[in-house]
């Protein structure tokens, strides 16, 4: 019989579990730990939510004046390059 992982062992494999980069056998071992350990189940659940909430939030738009200054700087650089040819 396979011995259950400790919480520390499970957490060291958390990324592999979340990113689904494990073999079926390893995933089974990790899943068995979560089934038996409510703390690690909560850690998995809230870590997934953490990643998803960052992925889901809209990035702040680049402010209009920042875009305009970027464009102006780029136009100058382009003109400089053309002038130098």
């Amino acid at each position: 019989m396979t011995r259950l992982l400790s919480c520390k062992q499970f957490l060291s494999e958390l990324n592999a579990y979340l990113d689904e980069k494990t073999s079926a056998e390893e995933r089974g071992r990790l899943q068995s730990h979560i089934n038996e350990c409510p703390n690690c189940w909560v850690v998995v659940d809230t870590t997934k939510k953490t990643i998803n909430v960052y992925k889901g939030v809209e990035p702040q738009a680049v402010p209009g004046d920042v875009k305009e200054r970027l464009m102006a700087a780029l136009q100058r650089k382009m003109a400089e390059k053309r002038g130098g040819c």
Partner: protein
Amino acid sequence: MVTGWYSGPEAGMQATNDGIGFDEAALVERARGGDDRAFESLVGHYQRKIYRLARNITQNDEDAEDVLQDAFLKAYTNLEKFHGDSKFYTWIVRIAVNEALMKLRKRRGDRMVSLDEELDLGDEGVTREIAVWDGNPEQTYSQEELRKHLDDAIQSLKPTFRTVFQLRDVEELSTEETAEALDLSIPAVKSRLLRARLQLRERLTRQFKRKGDDAFAFL
């Protein structure tokens, strides 16, 4: 002359693709051949992501603007040196990260900000806060409120952690691309990502946990 590409990410798409879809490799090829409009389209497409990346690393709007400009100007100037071994996006991210870290070092007045610093991977209590979240934060908070909570949490991380998290989980670069962009080994990216995820989880749980739920209350 203002050509209009900068009105949003979509503008780059329209100017470039004729409805076919964003084709980074084709735009880079045209830009390398001297087509400035193609380069403008790349800028239009990626500026929002690069600005977010710069803000998250530097934690400063003024520095983020400088990083945004410097990164794209450097890319434009050095386009001939880009041989397509990696994706253009990975390349521009790497330039922006370097620029952002230089800004951070300058502002902090030290040379100690490094992505390659030794990590204490000991038994630091990164999972002290064990509590379920109160519903779905995306539904509980407005985008602006949510962004504020997320910004506050990510700001509390060390640069090395927040940069790796940003690239892997927000910009969705692969582990290999992140390692390449940051000049880190793959194990170093993995260990920093694990620590970053757990620290952010800890901080957000303090914010989003179900009211009245203390740690281990469900046991």
